[in-house]
């Protein structure tokens, strides 16, 4: 057998693995870069490798304002997530369950904020706020974030409700559960994973948002805004630490959820 054929066989067997490794490398290189540079010895900027240190991790609030901005982002994220999730879930139930005039139109309009370019939304929101003489700040950011994340919540929760077998609720009513009991014991627990997913999505959309926030935030600083502004004069390594920490936290949550599911499946 010639080596050419052998090589081709080997390639045939391992093509998928190679493809997988390359794809992962593509996705994770920037993240790995962030992590590595979070251990870089601090200077005004963090663009060249100067040597390993734990200093950034032990004191991540070293750079002026970085933790202040992070705190603002977290506050805004939580507030807008709670509001968008509650409102969006209610809209989703209304759209999925009730026939009313304008339902089809609403279903379409819900997609509009997703389809509109963010800068356009941002500019028009700013115009709106200025015309109404609303003081730019926390309130305007939260209003803006709720506005663009609510569509995502509605779509995610609605999909979950649609996949629910209506006979389950009928069976509950047949078994003497009134409307509210049926909702509390059957509907809500079964839709809950969809709502949780929607909330996570809303939070990450809010935490991540730069464009709209930049327009409507006035002098409130958020983490993305901080990173963007400091990019001009050099991003401090602390921002890399915070970025890495967020990533690790997200991974930990996913792993914990998997572990929990696995344990529960095993214990049955």
């Amino acid at each position, binding site marked *: 057998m010639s080596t050419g054929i052998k090589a081709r066989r080997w390639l045939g067997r391992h093509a998928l693995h190679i493809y997988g490794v390359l794809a992962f490398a593509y996705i994770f290189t920037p993240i790995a870069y962030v992590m590595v540079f979070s251990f870089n010895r601090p200077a005004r900027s963090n663009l060249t490798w100067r040597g390993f240190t734990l200093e950034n991790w032990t004191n991540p609030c070293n750079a002026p304002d970085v933790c202040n901005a992070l705190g603002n982002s977290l506050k805004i994220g939580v507030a807008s997530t709670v509001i968008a999730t509650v409102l969006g879930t209610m809209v989703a139930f209304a759209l999925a369950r009730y026939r009313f005039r304008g339902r089809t139109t609403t279903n379409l309009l819900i997609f509009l904020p997703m389809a509109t370019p963010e800068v356009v939304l941002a500019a028009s929101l700013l115009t709106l706020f200025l015309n109404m003489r609303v003081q730019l700040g926390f309130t305007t950011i939260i209003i803006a974030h709720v506005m663009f994340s609510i569509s995502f919540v509605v779509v995610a929760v609605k999909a979950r409700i649609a996949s629910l077998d209506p*006979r389950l609720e*009928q*069976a509950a009513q047949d*078994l*003497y559960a009134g409307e509210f009991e049926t909702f509390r014991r059957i509907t809500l627990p079964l839709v809950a994973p969809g709502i949780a997913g929607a909330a996570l999505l809303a939070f990450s959309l809010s935490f991540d948002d730069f464009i709209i926030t930049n327009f409507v935030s006035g002098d409130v600083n958020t983490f993305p805004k901080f990173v963007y502004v400091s990019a001009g004069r050099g991003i401090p390594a602390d921002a890399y630490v915070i970025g890495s920490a967020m990533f690790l936290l997200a991974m930990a949550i996913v792993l914990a959820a998997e572990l929990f599911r696995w344990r529960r499946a095993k214990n049955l």
Partner: protein
Amino acid sequence: MATAEAGGDLRLSGVTKRFSAFTAVDGIDLTIAQGEFFAMLGPSGCGKTTTLRMVAGLEEPTEGSIHLGDLDVTHKKPYQRPVNTVFQNYALFPHLTIFENVAFGLRRRGVKDVKKQATDALDLVELGHLAQRKPAQLSGGQQQRIALARAVVNRPQVLLLDEPLGALDLKLRRQMQIELKRIQTEVGITFVHVTHDQEEAMTMADRVAVMNHGKIEQLGAPSDLYESPDTTFVANFLGQSNLVPGTRTGTDGGYVVIESHGQKARILQSRCVPGSDLLLGVRPEKIRIQEAGDEVPTGLNRLTGGVVVDASYLGVSTQYLVRLPWGQNLTVFSQNLGITERFRDGSAVTLAWEPDHSFGLAGDAAAGVDEEAAALAAAASAPQG
């Protein structure tokens, strides 16, 4: 609360259900006595499930009313009725354990000894050991039994069963039938049982309703339906029937005389519909098959000139397909007593039966024929080789 003594019969009066233009249930009048085991049979899509759903309160009748004793429940919510359902697709709650599924109704009603009652119900369906599992971890048949336990545990006044044994194998099915019957007689619950299994309906039910196109074709004790069907649909849907077209020529004592292709037969007047164009009906097992030329006892109906075109030995009986001179095939079941002769293909035979076993119908002779079975029979009668 919900199971308060409303007492009495389940009465449906003129109950109709329309889905926009389509009429799924068409003016059903029905009274089911308290404690009765009532079965509903009918082809797919004839409105059985819709009828049950209206009794359960999951669907509102377009017209008509439903009473439980003196209580008008037509527009009551499902949770306000002392009625429970075993759903056609189980509808177990996927996020609750088997135990919690069964305990659900008890908890909602604020029953005290939930644990004992739910455990008893689980033991009743022999699945006590699975109490802590989730529905997705059970087989189809097990899920079905849980659905049964979840409904029965509430001891409702009326239990609606929508093909509750459909997914079980034959042995378990027979076992559950006995269990069901026992529960029903023990607790005195009214059972309304929808099934595709004729044998199940016939053996378990006090009365059977045969439905077709949203209407009740016939209602009665299983033996009445079988021995004396009112329509060709019932005659063909319940068991098999031979239907020979003929015309009424007169009466003879209490009998109607019908002539078919020059041969005369008699039908009890009470079992014959009015009109002159008739279908002479007789069940396959009522027919005696004998060699052409042999003497037929006097007083029997007979059809002569038959030729055996197929004989299938089935162990306890032999099934013959006999072609009559005008080309129609009749089915005959002959018990293998060992004293009567067995006939081969091509034998010339005469068919005879008691006049009291015939019935006279009108209409489409092929209504309600099980198409699959008919195709099989046709394949069997086709010349071999």
